Every structure is written in C-alpha cells, then in structure tokens.
C-alpha cells in the first residue's frame, strides 16, 4: 500500500539530510582534496595538481603491497569464516544436542570490541608467557614468533578475524537455513538420498543466493579492517601486515599528507568497487542457473 501525503517529506528528510551532510558531502570534499597538493607538516599552500596524487599512488610500492595484504587477509579469513560458519549453522539447524546453548554462546565474539579482542589475542599469543606457547611447547615447538614474523603474524590476524566474525556468518546463514522448505527434504528422504546428496542437491543450491550475499557483505567489511591490526601488530613486522585503512591513517594522521591521503582513500574505494563488480560478474551465471 502506498499513499500520498506531503508529510512523507518530513519523515524521509531528516535521515537523507544527515547522510548527505555527514557522508556524501565529506566524500565530495575528499574527492576535491584528492586533486590538490595539501600538506600540513611542513605547511605548504594548497595547489591544484589534477591527477598527480593518483599517478604517485599507482607507482607507490607500499600502496600495492598494502592492497595485496588487505585482500589476502580479507579473502582468506572470510572464506574460512564461511566454511566453518556454514558447517556450524547446519549442525545447529539439524539440532545437534545442546543446540540452544551453542546458539547463544557462539554469538558472543561478534559483540566484543575488536580492540579488546586484539589485546586478549596478544596475551594468548605471547611467545613466552602465553597459554598457546605452553600448548605448542608440549608438542615440541616453543617460542613461536606469532606476531613478529610475517607469515605467523598474518596467520594470527586471520585466526582472530575468524574468531570474531564467524558468529555473524552463523547468525545470517542460520536464519536462511531455518526458512528452507521441509517437504523437499521429506521427498529426498523417500528417494533414499544420502545426507551428502541432500546437501549438494538441495541445501547448497537453495542457499546459494544468500551465501553469495553473506560472503560479499563479509568481504566488504573485512577490507575495512584496522583496529585488530592496529593493536596486534601495528602493521609490523615492518609494514608486512599493514592494511589499507591503517596505511591511510598513517599517511593522514601521522604525516598530515592530506591530498595524498584523500586520493589513497578514493583508490581504496575503487579497489572495493572493482572487487564487487568482478564478484558479481563471476557469480551471476551461477545464480541464474539455480533460479
């Protein structure tokens, strides 16, 4: 039902205005700045330089390394989150004993502040005093460099991301799984289809559109990662775990290189948009197949 009434503007406009002022206009302002050479330290008068900042970025090795680090963390952790989350959601919907208890406790991590998670992770991963070191020592590997060697540090960040965000995947997929029609499974049962066949023949295809959406949402969110990295490794060792947002923060807030940072954040936006478009293009034929 839709109806006409001038009061509709009174309902919609506050939200639109707030988003225009606080999100769209800063975006425009940032885009304008990205075409300028603007530095606070050392102070330099603003100068219009066109695409120079973007050209500098394209040849900035650090930028490309940061893009690849961020993509690696995002895609690896989200893929694992998705696989684990799907398995857990499936076992909850199939009423594993104690499902109600699991359902509540499995959700906890996503409500914990990422900075707090990172601090706890630092304690657990401490190479001499942490509990994980005690466990690995038991198997004969002591004092592993969990946060101080690139490969280990990336792995640790990914595990922390999995810990924190698999709950969200569980929550979303569970809602989808619960709404699947029961009669299809009853029919499959009459045909003596095995559990494995039922999964690949019914559950997976029916869940594909939703899975695609959940995966997409998580990848986009994962690209924004800063707080966990900021606390756990600070981008180190060196810059090997630095993510896009952290790099932008360093450039903007530590070096006050304003024009460059604005260009950097726009390139970040471009990276996310390109990944989204490629993702949708890859997925489209599959989604249509199951329609």
């Amino acid at each position, binding site marked *: 039902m839709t*109806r006409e009434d001038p009061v509709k503007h009174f309902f919609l406009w506050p939200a639109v205005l707030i988003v225009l002022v606080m999100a769209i206009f800063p975006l425009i302002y940032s885009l304008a700045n990205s075409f300028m050479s603007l530095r606070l330290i050392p102070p330099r008068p603003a100068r219009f330089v066109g695409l120079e900042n973007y050209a500098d970025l394209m040849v900035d090795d650090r930028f490309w390394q940061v893009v690849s680090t961020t993509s690696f963390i995002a895609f690896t952790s989200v893929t694992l989150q998705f696989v684990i989350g799907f398995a857990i959601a499936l076992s909850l919907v199939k009423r594993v004993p104690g499902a109600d208890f699991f359902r509540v406790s499995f959700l906890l991590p996503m409500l914990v502040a990422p900075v707090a998670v990172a*601090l706890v992770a630092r304690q657990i991963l401490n190479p001499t005093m942490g509990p994980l070191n005690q466990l690995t020592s038991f198997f004969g590997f002591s004092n592993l460099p969990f946060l101080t060697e690139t490969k280990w540090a990336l792995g640790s960040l990914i595990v922390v991301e999995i810990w924190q965000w698999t709950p969200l995947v569980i929550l979303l997929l569970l809602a989808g799984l619960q709404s699947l029609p029961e009669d299809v499974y009853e029919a499959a049962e009459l045909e003596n289809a095995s559990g494995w066949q039922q999964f690949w023949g019914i559950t997976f295809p029916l869940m594909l559109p939703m899975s695609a959406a959940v995966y997409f949402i998580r990848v986009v969110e994962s690209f924004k990662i800063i707080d966990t990295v900021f606390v756990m490794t600070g981008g180190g060792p060196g810059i090997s775990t630095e993510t896009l947002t952290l790099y932008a923060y360093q450039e903007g807030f530590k070096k006050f290189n304003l024009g460059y940072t604005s260009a950097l954040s726009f390139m970040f936006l471009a990276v996310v948009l390109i990944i989204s478009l490629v993702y949708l293009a890859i997925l489209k034929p599959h989604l249509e197949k199951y329609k």
Partner: protein
Amino acid sequence: MSVRDLKGGKRYWVLSACLVWLVFTLFPLYWVAITSLKSPVDVVGGPTYIPFVDFQPTLKAWKDLFSGARGGFFSTFWASTIVGLSASVIATLVGSMAAYALVRFPFKVRLASGIIFFIVAMGGYLLGSEVFGVNPAMASIVAFCVALALSIFLNRFALPGAVLGNDDIIFWFVSQRLFPPIVVAFALFLLYTEMGKLGFKMTDTYFGLTLAYVAFSLPIVVWLMRDFIAILPVDVEEAALVENVPSWRIFFGIVLPMARPGLIATFVITLAFVWNEFLFALFLTNSKWQTLPILVAGQNSQRGDEWWAISAAALVAIIPMVIIAGLLGRLMRSGLTIGAVK
C-alpha cells in the same frame, strides 16, 4: 522431530566438533576474565589457568581501575555510554521514520538532480576555496546549501535520464556501508578542524561524535527497519486513515508500538556497532570525548606486559556488550532476526 535432524552416531561427531568450536570461542573470554584477577607474579611466571588451584585471585587490578589510579576511566566510560545511547536512539528513530516513509509513500528522485548536486557541491567548494580564497569551511557550507537547494528545485522539472524510486533510495542508503569508512572519517576530521577555525568546535565534542555515529548507523537502521515495517499489517493504519488521523500520529501512535520488537533489535545492533567503533573515535576525539575502544587500544603501548590491568580495562569494554548479547539471544530465539536478513 524433522527429517533434517541428525541421526545415530553422526550426532556425536557433530557434537564433538561443536564442543571444539565452543572451547575456541570461549577460551579467550575466560582467559581475559581470569587474567584480570591475577597478581603480577602469576602473570609473569607463565600461564596459570584455574583460580584458587594454580593461582590466588586478587581484585587489585579492579581496585586500581575503579580508584582512578590509572587515569580517567569513569569519564571515558561515561563518554562511551552517553554517545552510544544517544546515537543509537537518534539513529533508530530517524532511520525508522525514513524506513516508514519509504515503505508507505512513493518517492521520485531524478538521477540528473543527484548528479547536479554532486557537481555543484564539488565545483562550488573548489571555486570558493581556490579561486575566491574563502575559508574552506565557509566554502563547504555555502556550496552544500546551494547544491541542495538547486537539486531539489530542479527535481520538479522533467529532467532527462532515469527516475529513481523507493528501492533505489534504500539502495542509496545501504550502499553507504560499502564505502570504506576511512574516506568519510578522514574528510570529517578535516571538515571538523575547519569548522573549529570558524569558531564551532566539532572535534572532541559530544555533538560532533554523536552526529558522525548517527550518520554511520543510519544505513543499517533503514535497511533493518524497512523489513520490520514492511511485514506490519496495513489494515490498522487504513482504519486510522478513515478516521482522519494525521500520518504523524499514525506513525508514532500505531506503527512504532507495533514495530517494537524490530525497534529493540535494531537499537541493540546499532548500540553494539557504536560501542565498539574505533576509526571515527580515533579521528574525531582526542581527550574529553574519547571512547572506550580508544582507551583500551592505548593500554597496549602504555602498559607493556601489565596484563592484569589491560585485562580489566578490556573487560570494561566487553561486559556491557555481553549483557546486550543475552538480550539479543532472547530476541533471536523468538525468531525476530529472521525478518532482518530477507
């Protein structure tokens, strides 16, 4: 019992896998809780696991925290609470109004007027600050107002190009979540600083931070509330319309009370987002209105290996949200969040 339920020995394999995940999920939380009760000796001497068995718990870290010996914890907690609550309340209310409007009334926005807004705002700002040498903040305000007025005015005319409807407006709201927040956070930091030069202090103020969080939460509120409002029955509203009840009273008197479960879920989700948010707080605050995540992150460099103190600080940020999780869990069991992801 449904046909999809697990049968026979498989149940126990799945159960043990779930138990492994449960240990993985709960151990860090258990660890931070017991570490906050340890004395320095018990931390440095290697890992200890069970209170009263391999270490003697003490409340020292908590006493230090509450006595304020370690800096202004109360003021930070207060700042986090008041900013979190007010931003969530405002965002839920304003977002629900927008969602209601988008569900019940038709809107038409011409793509061309949106593009005009973009060009005029950006061109006006560049022109003002570069060519006429106006203060950047003043140039922004003028460019914004002119662009908005012009695009609203031009929207009345039959401009060429696509006409956007309600679904497109919702997509426009939601797409804000796609943007990396650093773009907006950094620009807001610059704009707030420029506003400060004009005499309106925005950085490190209640107003500045809350406004940023309201804008940051609106996309998700509109998205969630759209579904919650769309499933409400329309006949009550229609009956009220026949009685000539004005729309604003229908909304506040009928729609909001009916959508209460959805409102609560949305409010809780928004509160959790704002409470844990790091990036905006990092850019927009520096002392008075600093929030808990910033303070907690700072513990790391200030305290080194004083894990008992760090853990207590981390728990102050964690515990309120765990209580919230209890509330959300209860809501979930009644199946309310299902509507949210359709």
